């Protein structure tokens, strides 16, 4: 198919022409057969009328009523004709007699002779109906065939668009490869080229963005590490030399550098876990074991703040996922809970399985008794670089505003869901992550 328009126009015209003409021919043939039968019937009636004339007393039923008047006297009448004149008017007229409505024709060829012929109107209408119906039937019967063929032709013509749309909808978020179709019609060709060009530009842009963010973060990492070491050395030197720092400039500087390091670390992680870039290596893993490892990783900090942490629920929860990404997810949630909870606070992790919409879901709930988040900010906290209360967060904790954005990306990557709510403690935040098993 080179052109959709040409294909549709030519095939539909051909179909309409063929079906209409064949229907017309069938109508013609059927009407001719009926008309032939009609004429044959007239011949039969005429023959019967004439034979009756020569068979006195015959009461054979005829389709026609016939009267012959001569000098005002009825000299002949057929069985159906009354004894009185069927019509007084010359030519065609309609009258009632013998319990029927008749179409009557009166002719007076000479002053002495009058012939009156009548035919029941119902019979005439019946015969006319037969001829008309015979001519209409083929046209009416061809309509479903036309509808079926139009449906087939239009479906066939639109199949390249359907294939194009199916290819687009089956593409994964990170699949920017060109769409390839066989037998592309002219109308779709430009659209396909433009779409593929767009995909190519998008792939380039993503690649550049990915490389840029990664390169910048990587390039900043080394000087920041050097800066941290130098700051640490300078701080030690100040202490040894007895230089006082009443305004805490050194501490503020160290905190700033530490925050910048955390930010760069998170940017690199965000880049790695972005669903558009990340190629998940799914494997069967134990989420409960993974949670235990994360708790162990964070335990020194939790212990230093004299916080309580407990892991409730299932001891083993097997699911398919990317180990690195899920570990990062749990780590960010536990880290946030610890960071934003006060000294002596409580953190709780709970693992369970739920049946939802004929599919089993792993449920991970992380909650703390920290200050929590106002419900109106629940959606915003997933935005990149968004921090509740801005840089002046009441906890004074160093953060980049990327932790929950990374968590959300990982959940999306695993086709799961994440929701925030009030903690079961008297205050605090409850994060619920649902991951399909």
């Amino acid at each position: 198919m080179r052109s959709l328009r040409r294909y549709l126009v030519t095939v539909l015209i051909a179909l309409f022409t063929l079906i209409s003409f064949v229907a017309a021919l069938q109508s013609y043939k059927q009407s001719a057969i009926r008309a032939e039968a009609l004429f044959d019937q007239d011949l039969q009636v005429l023959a019967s009328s004439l034979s009756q004339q020569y068979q006195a007393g015959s009461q054979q039923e005829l389709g026609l009523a016939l009267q012959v008047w001569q000098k005002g006297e009825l000299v002949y009448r057929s069985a159906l004709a009354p004894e009185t004149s069927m019509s007084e008017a010359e030519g065609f007229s309609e009258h009632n007699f013998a319990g029927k409505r008749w179409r009557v024709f009166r002719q007076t060829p000479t002053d002495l002779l009058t012939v009156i012929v009548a035919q029941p109107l119902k019979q005439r209408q019946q015969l006319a109906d037969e001829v008309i119906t015979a001519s209409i039937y083929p046209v009416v019967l061809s309509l479903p065939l036309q509808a079926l063929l139009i449906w087939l032709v239009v479906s066939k013509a639109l199949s390249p668009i359907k294939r194009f749309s199916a290819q687009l909808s089956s593409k994964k978020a990170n699949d920017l490869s060109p769409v390839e179709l066989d037998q592309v019609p002219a109308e779709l060709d430009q659209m396909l080229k433009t779409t593929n060009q767009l995909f190519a530009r998008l792939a380039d842009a993503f690649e550049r963005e990915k490389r840029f963010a990664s390169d910048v973060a990587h390039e900043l990492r080394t000087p920041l590490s050097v800066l941290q070491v130098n700051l640490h050395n300078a701080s030690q030197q100040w202490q040894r030399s007895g230089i006082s720092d009443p305004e805490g400039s050194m501490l503020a500087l160290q905190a700033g550098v530490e925050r910048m390091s955390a930010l760069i670390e998170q940017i690199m992680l965000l880049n790695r876990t972005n669903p558009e870039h990340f190629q998940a290596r799914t494997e069967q893993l134990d989420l409960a074991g993974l949670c235990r490892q994360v708790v162990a990783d964070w335990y020194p900090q939790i212990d230093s703040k004299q916080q309580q942490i407990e892991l409730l629920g299932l001891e083993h929860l097997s699911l398919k996922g990317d180990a690195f990404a899920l570990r990062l997810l749990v780590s960010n949630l536990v880290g946030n809970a610890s960071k934003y909870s006060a000294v002596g606070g409580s953190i709780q992790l709970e693992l369970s399985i739920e049946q939802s919409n004929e599919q089993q879901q792993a449920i991970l709930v992380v909650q703390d008794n920290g200050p929590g988040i106002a419900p109106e900010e629940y959606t915003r906290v997933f935005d990149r670089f968004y921090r509740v209360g801005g840089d002046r967060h009441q906890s004074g904790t160093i953060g980049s505003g990327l932790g929950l954005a990374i968590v959300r990306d990982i959940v999306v990557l695993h086709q799961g869901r994440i929701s925030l709510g009030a903690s079961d403690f008297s205050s605090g935040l409850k994060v619920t992550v649902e991951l399909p098993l």
Partner: protein
Amino acid sequence: MLINTVLMFLRELLPLCLLLATLLVWHRSVWRSLVLYFALPSVLMLSLISLQMVWISEQLDGLGLELLYSFLYLSCFVLLCLSALKAQWALLRSALAAACLFSIGGSNLLLYIWLPGQAENTPADLVLGSALGVGIGASIAVLWYYLLSELKQWRISSFALLLSLSGARQVMMASALLIQSDWLVAGPQLWQTEQLLSEQSELGFFLQALMGYEATPSLSQVLLYVLCFTLLFWCCSLMEKKR
């Protein structure tokens, strides 16, 4: 009568329309050249036959026209075989094959239209009948073209089969004329399928135009048909292998 005109136009044009549609699928990339190569010799041959029809029909003991038509049918078959065998000049040979068929159908139609004693056909009958006949023939050709294109796309080797059937049909028509002229011995009648599928029915009519369906074929016709079909199918298979 209207119906006679329609049937006459269909009988003469439908085989040509089907052959042209098949050839257009074959030579799709150079269809304009095919149409041009077909049109010029068609007009020339039709003019010659029409102008000399009386003289031609008087030749060979009054069998001139029948024998000329037989020759044109056989030429059509031979040209199709040659087109399939050698790619060189295939387009021109295909166009000439279609032109042979056109000149037969065209001259028969001219004869029908201008024949004295056409009183039973009113001008309205002729115009309407020819419009219906041409319309139906052209519509079937368009649908046939797209059906063949679709089959070709699905890599079904139907093209060789259909072209071979079309070529063998021309030989069938030639053999009928040669038997009628006593130039070919008919032999015994092999079967009778008139009751099963009449040549006058719509399907019989279509099959007759497509593959030369005959309800009562004779032995010589069947032998010739099978031989020519096999030959052309072999040529087409060779052509497809070369591709």
